[in-house]
């Protein structure tokens, strides 16, 4: 009951934030920009093109009229036309975004699998050799620039050792499959729509293991580079909250009850320590989306980061703006999900709603 009211309230808030973000971006592109027409038409546009764009985006109207059209266009999927690719921006996003989402999710899983256990290990003997070692490592890795990890991995694993491919590649057989796939469960056919450009997921759903393997091999390096970008933030968070929790009375109670140390650590200490991690999960996810900018550029991995990089280098502003907005929307939504998860996980918060 209460939880639902909270969800609705938070969803409404998220919507407002997205709206405000849109207005802010609009202000940037249509008001603050020194030359709004060239923002939308590209720097090399001819006077005729400028004329067309001015009419299309109502750039000669007062700002509030422009804003009205801007918002209306955004919610109807008219995100402008890319001067670089000469296609509607929305179709570019549709093509590139899923690739990055898949990459980011894999990187997130990798990151959590690497960092959470390290944080736990580090907290068990604070000040010990293992702990000091882990802390030293993450103090250093935490400040690695995104291209550093990518470069080293690329040079070492791909160019030098030839273990893994250096660039993006999708098995051509996958593209030939039907985009729609059905499961037969108990006589009823459940349809699964494949999302274009999620090669790994699609290969799995279709059951093309060759393509799956190929896609997996190609995703390892970028995903690893992305997972290692900012490596240590979670280790630190887990370590510190574990230290707090391990010193708390309820962990003492759990021990006093006669539970095995493993049960105390996992069921009582770790579960409680994971709560703060949920709250920053969306920040981590936002970091991964941003890290994909550089990582995808270095690995020529055709995701939204790559798209943004191309639009930056070629002054394709409509694509840049749309990408910024859409990533913002994703981050805001992931924040919403994290908040909801947190209220589900922590009864105290659920109660105080």
């Amino acid at each position, binding site marked *: 009951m209460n939880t639902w009211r909270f969800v609705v309230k938070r969803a409404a808030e998220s919507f407002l934030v997205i709206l405000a973000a849109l207005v802010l971006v609009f202000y940037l592109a249509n008001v603050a920009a020194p030359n709004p027409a060239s923002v939308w038409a590209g720097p090399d546009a001819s006077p005729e093109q400028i004329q067309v764009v001015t009419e299309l985006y109502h750039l000669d109207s007062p700002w509030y009229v422009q804003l009205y059209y801007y918002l209306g266009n955004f919610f109807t999927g008219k995100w402008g036309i890319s001067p670089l690719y000469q296609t509607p921006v929305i179709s570019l996003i549709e093509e590139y975004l899923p690739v990055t989402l898949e990459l980011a999710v894999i990187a997130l899983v990798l990151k959590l699998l690497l960092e959470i256990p390290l944080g736990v290990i580090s907290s068990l003997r604070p000040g010990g050799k293992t702990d000091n070692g882990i802390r030293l490592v993450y103090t250093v890795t935490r400040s690695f620039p995104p291209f550093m990890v990518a470069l080293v991995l690329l040079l070492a694993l791909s*160019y030098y050792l030839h273990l893994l491919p250096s660039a993006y590649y999708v098995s051509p057989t996958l593209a030939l499959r039907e985009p729609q796939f059905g499961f037969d469960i108990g006589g009823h056919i459940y349809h699964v729509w494949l999302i274009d450009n999620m090669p790994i997921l699609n290969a799995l759903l279709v059951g093309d293991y060759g393509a799956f393997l190929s896609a997996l091999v190609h995703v390892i390096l970028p995903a690893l580079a992305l997972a290692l970008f900012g490596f240590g933030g979670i280790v630190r968070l887990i370590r510190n909250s574990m230290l707090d929790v391990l010193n708390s009375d309820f962990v003492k109670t759990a021990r006093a009850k006669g539970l095995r140390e493993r049960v105390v650590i996992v069921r009582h200490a770790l579960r409680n320590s994971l709560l703060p991690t949920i709250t920053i999960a969306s920040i981590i996810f936002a970091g991964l989306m941003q890290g994909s900018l550089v990582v995808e550029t270095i690995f020529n991995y055709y995701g939204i980061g790559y798209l943004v990089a191309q639009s930056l280098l070629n002054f394709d502003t409509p694509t840049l703006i749309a990408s910024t907005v859409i990533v913002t929307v994703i981050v805001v939504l992931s924040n919403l999900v994290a908040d909801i998860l947190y209220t589900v996980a922590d009864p105290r918060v659920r109660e105080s709603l």
Partner: protein
Amino acid sequence: MSLYRNVRRDKTLMAGLVILVVIVGLTVISATDLRLLTSYSPYSLNFSASNLPPSAKHIFGTDQEGRDVFTRVLAALPVDILTPFIIVVASVLLGGLVGVVAGYLAGLVDEFLMRITDLFLAFPGILLALAITEILGQSHVSLRLLYSEVALIVVGWPVYARLARGQVLQVKNMPYVTLAKVSGLSRTQILRRHVLPHLLPLLLVYSTLDMGAVILNYSVLAFFGLGAPPPTPELGRMVYDGLSALPQNWWSSLFPALIITIIAVSFSLMGDGLRDALDPRMGERYARA
């Protein structure tokens, strides 16, 4: 005082400090007269000496245009250190002010300021900064450095606002502030005596840590060519330029990347060390075990 002792005892802090002193020294010399450090020019092209691997003559090798990478790294230091510094200082001032005002006045002012802060926090920072710089800087290439600074301040201040507000709220509810109120201290007196002394060290620690992060963010901007306009050398841009010569010429992108890493790590080490030195509670955290 005990702070000084803590600083000396703390190895991370010392390590960070030593690296930083070396780098700042090099930066200052580089800014005054680059020829004191190197015999090459960071700008003039020399295609007969292109793509030379690291050697005694060119310790970081040469790039595709035959420029000495080491020289270009040195020449890039002033911009790559000073710009983040300006950004951090401006973010601290702006964010700190907003946070203190919000936390101290509370009520509607707080609500309003925090909504704005939340809005900026909702953005993926780098992406917004890239968009701002690109859109504003498109027609004024010469002002691009300024725009990139503005952009990074825009995405940088909200964290400080949250931090400052949180600290103000926390101190505001301490019993010693209640006592101060009973004794008739005015709001400004309480702010000066009790709130700021807790806030300033926190901001110092956080901004030191943040220096590392901003250096990275700025390097990403530079990576995409949105930092200082050419021919000013920049570490981030050098990494990008080097990519096209991979895998043969690995040195012209790896070494600049390495230098950025070292600078960022040294700030991070120092921030961590400062925090431990200033916050005795953290010390206990290790002792308890």
